[in-house]
């Protein structure tokens, strides 16, 4: 059986500039995989390429369907939820509206209400702010909102782009705890991009290390974590 997400020969371009060269990796259903690497290694680009947000060549298969070349919103509707870098908050809409957008094809049904409740179970703090303009939330709350919006899509795979970015360590810990819960309770597989390698390796079961648009190292998190050489040369701690 093929893997849940299978990426092979993935190339990506920004204008004339090539950012990814034959990236290949795979991800098992139910697992958490992390992409590590320095700035500019192509981690964010890889996530974007999976959702066809940049010019892409190569093959991406999700749940045995080739999704290369499909429109971003179609890929999203298949169950791939992308939590973008910078969180992508709709700043002038309320928290509730931010969440409901992701469920707009399902209308205002009771089902959506149930999904909302499920989300609030993970993030009770958002429920308190439900009618607040999303732009007035704190950074951590906006990150929670972004993850929640992804959850409202009822995803099977979540692509997380630096969820720890710019947040206080305590908040980061809280968010990572919840991500773990989402993974086990809601059975959402995750592909996590992180600068904070130690944190990511704790959460993930598999890790790939990228350097200048290529995969240079792969293995179970525990192995990568304990390999002095990898840590020193690629992860910088």
């Amino acid at each position, binding site marked *: 059986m093929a893997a849940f997400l299978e990426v092979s020969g993935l190339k990506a371009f920004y204008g004339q500039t090539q950012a990814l060269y034959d990236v290949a990796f795979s991800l098992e259903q139910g697992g958490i995989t992390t992409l590590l690497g320095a700035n500019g290694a192509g981690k964010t680009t890889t996530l974007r390429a999976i959702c066809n947000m940049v010019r892409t060549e190569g093959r991406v298969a999700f749940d045995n369907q080739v999704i290369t070349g499909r429109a971003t919103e179609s890929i999203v509707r298949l169950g791939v939820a992308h939590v973008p870098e910078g969180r992508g908050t709709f700043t002038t809409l309320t928290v509730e509206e931010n969440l409901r957008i992701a469920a*707009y094809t399902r209308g205002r049904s009771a089902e959506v209400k149930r999904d909302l409740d499920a989300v609030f179970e993970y993030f009770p703090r958002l429920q308190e702010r439900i009618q607040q303009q999303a732009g007035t939330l704190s950074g951590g709350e906006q990150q929670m909102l972004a993850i929640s919006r992804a959850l409202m899509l009822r995803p099977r795979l979540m692509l997380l782009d630096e969820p720890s970015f710019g947040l206080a360590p305590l908040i980061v810990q809280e968010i990572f705890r919840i991500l773990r819960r989402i993974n086990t309770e809601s059975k959402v597989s995750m592909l996590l991009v992180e600068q904070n390698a130690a944190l990511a390796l704790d959460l993930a079961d598999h890790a790939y290390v990228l350097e200048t648009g290529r995969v240079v190292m792969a293995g179970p998190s525990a192995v990568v974590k304990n390999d002095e050489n990898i840590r020193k040369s690629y992860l910088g701690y």
Partner: protein
Amino acid sequence: MEQLIQQIASGLANGAIYACVALALVMIFVSTDHINFAQGEMAMFSTYISWQLIQWGLDYWVAFFLAVAISFVAGVLIERIVLRPLHNAPLLSIVVVFIGLLAICNSVAGTVWSYLIKEYPTPFPKDVFGMSGLIGAHQLGVVIVTLVVLTLLYVFFRYTPLGLAMRAAAQNPVSARLAGVRVDWMLALGWGLAAAVGAVAGMMVAHIVYLDPNMMAGILLYAFAGALLGGISNPGGAVLGGFIVGVLENLVAYLGNAIEKGLGVYIIGNGEKLTVALIIVITVLTLKPSGLFGRVVVKRV
């Protein structure tokens, strides 16, 4: 005094029309950052369609709703066919395409229906609801129809999932895509709605200014003035701005008239309508580009 009130009342009626067109402009602006110079001519064209339907023997309201529906579809098609391919084109190309659309609507209407001025019917009863001629029946009808349209749009955008998706697509297209919203179709829908609202404005104003291919030029200019005054990124502000310039327009004419009567000096009158609009446009743009109620957008470099 009574004359003044009368002027204000009829200014509100004009303002209702400007508000509709201004709203149409804003709907396209917030989602695409484009100013649709052809909005007025599209509305004029819709009005001709309804006129033609009435000529063929349809009831006024049937023709009205049919024309609105046709305009909606036409708006969607124009976005999909004409504007979509120019998505990343330079500004000049897009402006030129709008001017081209304007010219085509105008000349096709003139070709098919001639440039002769036509009377356009009103669906509202003649008697004046016992309001002692303060406001004409048609004018009152215009205000009511406009308010209904605006309310419907408000409810649509505020309370329906589709309206929410359209707002999201306008505000942050990338995030909207990631939330599964078909952004391209939302833009096309916005165009359709704008065309439909414009059509309503055209059909309401045609009874007052008479139907001819150039009837919307001045109205479009006042709609611009209204939209800018209220803030071209703010639908509510644009509607309010439309009403304000409508009243302002009549007050200026009233004041000019009073000065001419009292002092015997002509300063300003109906002949300067477009100039007044131009002055409003330039004043607002230079002094307060975000309008009275608009948000100041900080540009990233």
